[in-house]
């Protein structure tokens, strides 16, 4: 086997551990704006529902208005639940950058901690929507060779932080992915 494969006993307390990661919460600005957006969205469909209800009967055939009512009711519920979920789930999102890896935590009922070794990152992308631009924020997308299923995105990073994380990843030594 490999001769550079050594197997010396290591002092366990020296090894870095997932348990001891200090996570940094994402920007409060992002949380605030997600909530505002969620709130607005959860009003859209109930108001549409209301409009359909108060419309004179002659404007829409009964079949159409029934379908619309049903669809809008479902959508209202979905958006309402999303809003409630996001209210509590958004503040849980947090990230941690260590020398060798980047971790991201999310999920309210199902907590998920992804740890991505930096040597295994294929590329990173900064994404900024209109709201992000307004608030000087950015999303960081991290791609590994694990495939599209396992690409993750850290939202609500301050632009400067996002840029420096990206820079850190790009200039990370020890990346040797092309054999």
């Amino acid at each position, binding site marked *: 086997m490999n001769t*550079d*494969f050594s197997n010396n006993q290591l002092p366990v307390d020296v090894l870095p551990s*997932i*348990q001891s990661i200090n996570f940094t919460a994402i920007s409060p600005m992002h949380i605030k704006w997600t909530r505002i957006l969620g709130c607005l969205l959860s009003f859209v469909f109930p108001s549409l529902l209301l409009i359909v209800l108060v419309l004179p009967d002659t404007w829409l055939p009964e079949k159409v208005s029934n379908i619309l009512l049903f669809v809008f009711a479902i959508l209202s519920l979905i958006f309402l639940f999303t809003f409630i979920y996001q209210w509590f789930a958004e503040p849980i999102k947090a990230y941690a950058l260590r020398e060798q890896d980047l971790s991201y935590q999310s999920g309210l*009922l*199902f907590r998920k901690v992804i740890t991505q*070794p930096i*040597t295994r990152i294929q590329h990173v992308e900064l994404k900024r929507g209109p709201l992000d631009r307004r608030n000087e924020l950015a999303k960081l997308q991290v791609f590994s060779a694990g*495939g599209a299923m396992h690409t993750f995105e850290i939202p609500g990073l301050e632009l400067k932080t996002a840029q420096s994380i990206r820079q850190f990843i790009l200039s990370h030594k020890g*990346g040797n992915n092309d054999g």
Partner: protein
Amino acid sequence: MTDNTPSDNSDYQGAATVSQWHRISPIAVIYYALRFVRGFVGNMAYLLPALLVGYNQIQKNPQAALPLSIAILALIIVSSILSYWFFQYRLSNDHLEIRSGVFSKKYLNLPFNRIQNVEVSHPWYYRPFGYATLKLDSAGSAQQEANIAALEKHFAEQLRREIVRHKASDNRQSATTTTNEQGLAGEQSASLEGEVVLNRRSISDIVLHGISNNRVWIVLGALAPFIDNLTKGIPEYLQAKGIDIDQIVSSAHMPWWQLTLAVITLVIIVMAIMSLISVIGAIITFYDFSLSKADSKYIRRSGLFSRHEITMPHSRMQMVTCQQDWLDKLFKRINIKFEQMNANAANQGQPSLSEGTNKIIVPSVTAEQRDFLVADAYPQSQLPAINFQPIQRRYLLRLYLLLALIAIPLLTLLAVADKTMPLLITSLLSVFLSVVIFMRYRRWGIATDNHYIYVRKGCFGVDYHIFEAYKLQQVKIKQSIWQKRHQLASVQFVLASGSVTVPYIKEELAKTIADFALFEVERQPRSWM
């Protein structure tokens, strides 16, 4: 036109010379024609309206059929010839350049060291003439894939070796060289000639594989465009023979045991036919199977009509899977998979007749052969001996609660309504499901030594996944709030070939193993490819 003679081909070995553009052999016209037809059949669904209209027209005036078919034939021939004519390749400076396309021109430059897989296949219609197709995958996407439709067999083989050899020497130069390869460096001069056959499969092995592993869907998939027509015909055929299914099924005169017997017979017949098709599929895929190793590369050759050859450098291997379904367990056979990077994840889980290029399957080996192959791929791995940590009992609790929540109200409802048959079926199904859940619980386990991670899972069968910890791409630890309360967690290892999950282990264990894997990845840079 026919300038791909072997004398010509020595050109590229003097790597610095820029050779001129070559055309492939004209025999490629057959390849392109068949590809055209296959594309046509594959897109049948979209063309159906046009076909129906055409069919009606022909029925109205049959004299149009001849000119029409001639026109279609001409179209196929012309397009194939054009495809052939505009396909040119050139080898220079360890690059492969391809120009193709009739209307929209395409230019592809593929450096040898970017090529991930080389597959040489010998379609049946080439075999009398001694030609082969060369398929090259690069690390990127499916678009970065090159198909050289017709090369002289000898030259294709030579080119494959050249690319593979180039890749190997490239690896040696890089800092990640391990003595693992140095041990084989002595053989390097012998290059690929020093090929050692690791495993061969006889027809009986393949038949066994066909029976125990359902390949029906692959064969049916290939037949998919025609299935609609086949199934449409069946009721009419039966009716013509005077058999009325409705009457048989709804017949009140028939005693229930007769009906049951009839159903059982039918099921057995269907199963037999399916296994037969499956065996045929397995033979088409795996006929004359051989797995050999040369210069730390695995080479798989198999196929009845089209010979496929897949080469996988040892360093590309991401995971070894030993799969044993319940029938395999009866036969005491195991399927081994050497998995490598899965560039087009969309194709995952969709086996084809050629079995794809992203893994090497060794069908239905015995336990000793498995141990030999696993030891060859992963020396010092301790698969047969290692102790697996089982998952926690709470996994059962959750699923049984869920099952009870659904099954008990349903059963009481059916009991109250006095419906015997549905009640029986539901209770049998519940029992079956609880057995399945229990078996899954029993199978799931995880183990590590100081280099490998082992995962065991399955239901009635059992699968072992082994991978080198440093090949990990990403690790996820998932925990629901209920799991957190009991210090449990699920851990998911993401590799370039796919991911493996182990649910409901102790949080402590999950984190220890994740830390170990991360440490293996991060302590020193090592290539995972």
